[in-house]
C-alpha cells in the first residue's frame, strides 16, 4: 500500500433506477452489486467479486433501460422529473455491466423471471439430481435458486449426459463432473488467485468437463478454496465429505491460528466435535480465502490422545487445585535465577499477559517464545507459523528478535544453572534439548494439549485448550487484533489456558488476581498495555481492529 499522501478523488455518483426506485452509486459499481446494495439480490453462479467476470452462467440477467434521449441529446424526463427509459428488448447480464447515469434496472420483470427459469431448467436437465447424497446439500446454490426462481416440473425426456464421478482431482479434493455447472470459478481461482493454472475444461458443448491438466493434480496449498466457491457439489473436500450434513453444523466465527496471517474463518462444529473451518471474508486480512494447511490443521483437537487431566508430582488424584498447588510450591522451591519460562507464539494475548504476570510472580528473568518458521508464499501463508508473535512482543514475552534467548536457556539447562523450566504449549526438544537433558531439570512444568517428549519428562503437566475451544485475542503479522470464539468445549478436565495461568499465579502469590472472566483479563491487559487502550474483547468485533503498532 502506498504511503504517499494522496488527496482522495471525490467519488462520482450516478443516479440509477432499480425496480422503480432511484438510488445513487459510485461510478464503476457493477449493476449486480448495485442491486444487492438496493436490497435486490440477483442470483448468480459464475460471478465472484474477487475473480474475473466471464459472464457464462447467464443467471444474473436483468432488464436494462438506457435513458431515452430527446432531439437535444438530453435525457427526456418523465412526470417525476427523472429520465424515461428505452428498455433493451433482451435480458442483459448484470455482472459485467457497470452503472451509468440514468440507467434503469428491472430485477423481477416477467422477462427476467422467464430468463432465470430458462437458465435453471438448462442447468438442471443434465444434472444428476443426487441431492440426497450430495455433500453440498444445504449450501447449494443450484438447490437454492431452483427453489426460488426455477421451474417446478421437468420437460426433459432424454438421457442425461454422463460424466466422470468421484474423481480424486487432487489430494484433498473429490470432483463429481456431473454436478458441475461449468461456472469456471474453480478454473479462474486457480489461475488468478492461487497462480497455479492446473485445472481447465475439456470437450465441448454439454460434454464440457472440468479436469486437471495431464500429469498435474490440484494439489496447491489453496486448492480447498475451490470447494468453497464451487456453487454446487461438484468439488467437495475429501476431508469433510460425508462427515456431516451442513445444516447440523453450529457456526462460530474465528480465525486460523496456523500462521501469522490469521485468516478469518467460520468453524463448523456439532456435538462438541469440530468438522471443518472455512474462510470468512475479511478484506484487511485474507479477502475470501485461506490455505489448505491452515484449514485442515485442526484434527488434533479431536485426537483420542488429548491430555484430559492435570498431572503433578505427589498428587495422585486428577485434581486441579492440588495440581496447581503442588506446581506452585515446586517452582517456589527454586531461586528465580534458576528458573526460565518459555511461552508460545500460539498463545492468546490474554494467556501471554498472564504468563508475563507469572514471570513477575516468580521473579523469572529469562523468558522467550519459540519461533516456528517454514516456507511461506506471496498469497497468504506467512513464514512465521506462530499466529501471535506480534502479541508476544507487545506483551513483553520476547524481545524484537523472538527466540534469541533460547540458546541461553538450553545452555543453562545443559550446564545445570537452570533447574526449573515452565514451558507453555511448546515442546522443549525443539530447543535441541535431548530428553535425558530435560530429565535433569528439577522442576519441569508444561501446559499442553497432546503428549510430547516434554510432557513425558515433565513432573507437572497441565492440559490446556485448543484455538476452537477457547476465547481470547491475537495480533497478526500486520498488527491486527483478532478474536477467537469458543466453538467447542475442551475435553475431559482440560482447561482454558488463561484459567490455568491465573490459578498457578494465584497459587504462587497466595492472592487473588480478581479475574473471573476472560473479559476481566482483557481489561487488565489493556490497562497495562498502551497499544490496547480503550479496547475490549467485544470491541474487537468479527473483523478485528488494527493496532497502532508497526
Amino acid at each position, binding site marked *: 500500500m502506498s504511503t504517499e499522501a494522496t488527496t482522495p478523488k471525490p467519488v462520482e455518483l450516478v443516479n440509477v433506477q432499480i425496480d422503480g426506485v432511484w438510488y445513487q452509486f459510485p461510478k464503476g459499481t457493477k449493476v449486480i452489486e448495485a442491486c444487492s446494495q438496493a436490497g435486490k439480490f440477483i442470483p448468480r453462479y459464475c460471478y465472484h467479486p474477487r475473480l474475473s*467476470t*466471464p*459472464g*457464462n*452462467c*447467464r*443467471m444474473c*440477467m436483468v432488464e436494462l433501460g438506457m435513458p431515452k434521449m430527446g432531439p437535444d441529446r438530453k435525457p427526456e424526463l418523465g412526470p417525476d422529473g427523472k429520465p424515461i427509459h428505452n428498455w433493451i428488448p*433482451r*435480458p442483459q*447480464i448484470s455482472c*459485467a*455491466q457497470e452503472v451509468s447515469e440514468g440507467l434503469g434496472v428491472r430485477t423481477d420483470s416477467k422477462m427476467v423471471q*422467464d*430468463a432465470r427459469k*430458462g*437458465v435453471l*431448467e*438448462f*442447468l438442471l*436437465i*443434465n444434472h444428476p439430481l443426487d441431492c440426497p447424497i450430495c455433500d453440498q446439500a444445504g449450501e447449494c446454490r443450484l438447490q437454492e435458486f431452483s427453489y426460488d426462481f426455477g421451474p417446478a416440473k*421437468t*420437460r*426433459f*425426456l*432424454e*438421457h*442425461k*449426459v454422463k460424466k466422470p464421478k468421484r474423481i480424486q482431482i487432487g489430494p484433498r479434493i473429490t470432483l463429481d463432473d456431473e454436478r458441475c*455447472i*461449468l461456472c*469456471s470459478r474453480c478454473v479462474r481461482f486457480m489461475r488468478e488467485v492461487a497462480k497455479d493454472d492446473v485445472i*481447465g*475444461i475439456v*470437450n*465441448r*458443448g*454439454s*460434454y*464440457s468437463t472440468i479436469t486437471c491438466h495431464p500429469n498435474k493434480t490440484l494439489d496447491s496449498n489453496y486448492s480447498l478454496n475451490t470447494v468453497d466457491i464451487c456453487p454446487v457439489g461438484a468439488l467437495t473436500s475429501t476431508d469433510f465429505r460425508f462427515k456431516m450434513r451442513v445444516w447440523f453444523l453450529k457456526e462460530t466465527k474465528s480465525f486460523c491460528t496456523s500462521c501469522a496471517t490469521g485468516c478469518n474463518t467460520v468453524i463448523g462444529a456439532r456435538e462438541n466435535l469440530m468438522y471443518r473451518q472455512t474462510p470468512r471474508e475479511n478484506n484487511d486480512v485474507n479477502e475470501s480465502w485461506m490455505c489448505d494447511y491452515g484449514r485442515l490443521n485442526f484434527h488434533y483437537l479431536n485426537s483420542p490422545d488429548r491430555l484430559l487431566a492435570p498431572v503433578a508430582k505427589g498428587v495422585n488424584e486428577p485434581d486441579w487445585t492440588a495440581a496447581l498447588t503442588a506446581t506452585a510450591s515446586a517452582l517456589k522451591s527454586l531461586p528465580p535465577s534458576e528458573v526460565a519460562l518459555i511461552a508460545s507464539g500460539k498463545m492468546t494475548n490474554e494467556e501471554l499477559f498472564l504468563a508475563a504476570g507469572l514471570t513477575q510472580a516468580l521473579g523469572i528473568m529469562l523468558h522467550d517464545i519459540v519461533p516456528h518458521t517454514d516456507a511461506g508464499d506471496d498469497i497468504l501463508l506467512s513464514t512465521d507459523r506462530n499466529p501471535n508473535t506480534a502479541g508476544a512482543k507487545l506483551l513483553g514475552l520476547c524481545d524484537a528478535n523472538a527466540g534469541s534467548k533460547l540458546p541461553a536457556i538450553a545452555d543453562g539447562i545443559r550446564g545445570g544453572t537452570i533447574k526449573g523450566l515452565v514451558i507453555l504449549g511448546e515442546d522443549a526438544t525443539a530447543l535441541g534439548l535431548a530428553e535425558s537433558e530435560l530429565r535433569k531439570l528439577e522442576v519441569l512444568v508444561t501446559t499442553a494439549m497432546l503428549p510430547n517428549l516434554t510432557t513425558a519428562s515433565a513432573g507437572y503437566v497441565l492440559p490446556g485448550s485448543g484455538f476452537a475451544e477457547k476465547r481470547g485475542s491475537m495480533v497478526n503479522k500486520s498488527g491486527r487484533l483478532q478474536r477467537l470464539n469458543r466453538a467447542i468445549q475442551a475435553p475431559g478436565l482440560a482447561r482454558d489456558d488463561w484459567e490455568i495461568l491465573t490459578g498457578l499465579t494465584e497459587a504462587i502469590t497466595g492472592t487473588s488476581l480478581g479475574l473471573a472472566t476472560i473479559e476481566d483479563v482483557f481489561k487488565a491487559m489493556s490497562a497495562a498495555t498502551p497499544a490496547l487502550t480503550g479496547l475490549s474483547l467485544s470491541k474487537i468485533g468479527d473483523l478485528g481492529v488494527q493496532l497502532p503498532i508497526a
Partner: protein
Amino acid sequence: MPAPRIPHPREKRIVFANIDREGYTPDIACYLRNGGYEDLKKAVKMAPAEIVAEVKTSSLRGRGGAGFPCGVKWGFIRPGETKPIYLICNADESEPGTFKDRYIIHQDPHQLMEGMIISAFALNVHLAYLYIRGEFPQGAQILEQAIAEAKEKGFLGKNILGTGFDLEIYVHRGAGAYICGEETGLIESLEGKRAYPRIKPPYFPAVLGLYQCPTIVNNVETLCHVKHIVRMGGAEYAKIGKPNNTGTRIVGVSGDVVKPGYFEIEVGSMTLGELINDLCGGLKPGRTLKAIIPGGSSAKVFRAGEKFKIKSKAADGSMVETEIGVLDIPLDFDTMAACGSMAGSGGVIVMDDTRDMVEALNNLNHFYAHESCGQCTPCREGSLWMQKITDRLLAGGGVESDPGLLESVSNNIAGKTICAFGEACSWPTMSFVAKFPEEFAARAKKQVPPPTPPEFLSETLIGAGH
C-alpha cells in the same frame, strides 16, 4: 484443381475475377502479370484516413455473416491510439453452406495479401494475423508462400515500397472448431486459449481485442473488397449494387439444384429465384421447391410459397408496401432481413420436396450441439437438448408436446447467450418448427407418459411404436 469454370454471364466478377481462370496460378509472378499490387502502390500514396474514408463512402458491409458496415467498424479505432492496433483476417470459413473464402486463398492468395496490406496501412497496423481454418492445411501453406513472396518483393515486411511502413502478417492455423470463427473466440484462440467467446461489453474487439488492444476482425472477402475500393474509389464502388447494399458478393449454392456452385453477383441484382433457376439450372427434374436457407445454416429457413410484405420507397419518395414470394426476394442484406432471415455468409441451401424437414433440422442440430463451445448455459445445454428431441422424433419417440418444447427451448437460448452462436443454433429450430408444423406434428403424436425416472423415458417412448 477443378476444371476451369466459365463464369455465368449474369455474374459480376471482381473478387473472383481470377478464380478458375485458365492458366491463372497462385504465385506472385502471375499476380504481378495481372496488375497485382498496383492498388497497394496507389494506397501507400494516400493518407491512411483517406483510405478509411473511401471504405466508408463505399458502404462496404462485412461478408463474414453479420453484414456490419466495414467503414463504421474501422471508425471505432480512436485517432491517436497509443496501443498497438491489430488486424485479423477471419479465414475460418466453417458455417455450413459457406464456400467462398477458400477459393480466394487457394487460387488468388495475393489478392487477399494486397487487401490486408492496404487495410493494415489504413488502420496503422504493424502486425496482422491470418486465422485460417485448421481443416485448410493446403491453404495455410499457400498463404505462407504468398507472404514469403510478398516480402521478397518488398510488399510486406520492413519499409514497404520505401514508405517506411512496416507490416508483418502471420498465418495462424485454426483450432478445429466452428466457434473459432466468432471474432472474440478467434481472438482467444489466437492468444493460445480455448476459443471461448468474450462478453460484449466490455470486450468489443475494436476497443479491447487481441491482447486487450484495439483489433479489427474482417472476413477474407471483405478485405479483398478493400483492394477494389481503393482502385475504383469508394463512390464508384458504391454504384455497384444498391444503396446500403453495395458491391458484389459471392454466394455459394448447395443442395437440390442442378448446378450447385459459387457465383459472384452484384448485391441485389437478382432474386433467389433467378439465382436458383438461371444460374444454378433450377431444381432437379420432377422436383418442387420446399425450402431455402438463404445465408448459411444459421439463417432462418424460408418455406416455398411464403409471402412477405416489403416496404420500399416509391419514385415520389412515399413508402409503398408490396407482397413478394420467396423466389422474389432480391439477394441483398436489407430485404433478406426484412423477410425475417439474413444474407449471412452467402451460403444458399436449397431443399426440394424429397427432403424431410425434421431430418434436416436434426442434421443442423447435430452440428450445433457438437460445435457449441459450452461456455454459457443456454447454448451449451439447449443445443444438445434440441438435438436429442429431434433424435427422438426421428426414432419414433415423438410426443405431442415436442414441437412446442422445441420452440420454447430455442426461445430460451436466443438472445440470452454470450455470443451469436446462441442465435445461430436456435434460429434453425425456431424457423423449421414454425414453418413446417405439419412435419413435426406428424412425428409427435404420442402422449406424454406419466413421470418415470427420466433415464428410461426416451427408450420407452421410442420402443412403444406408433
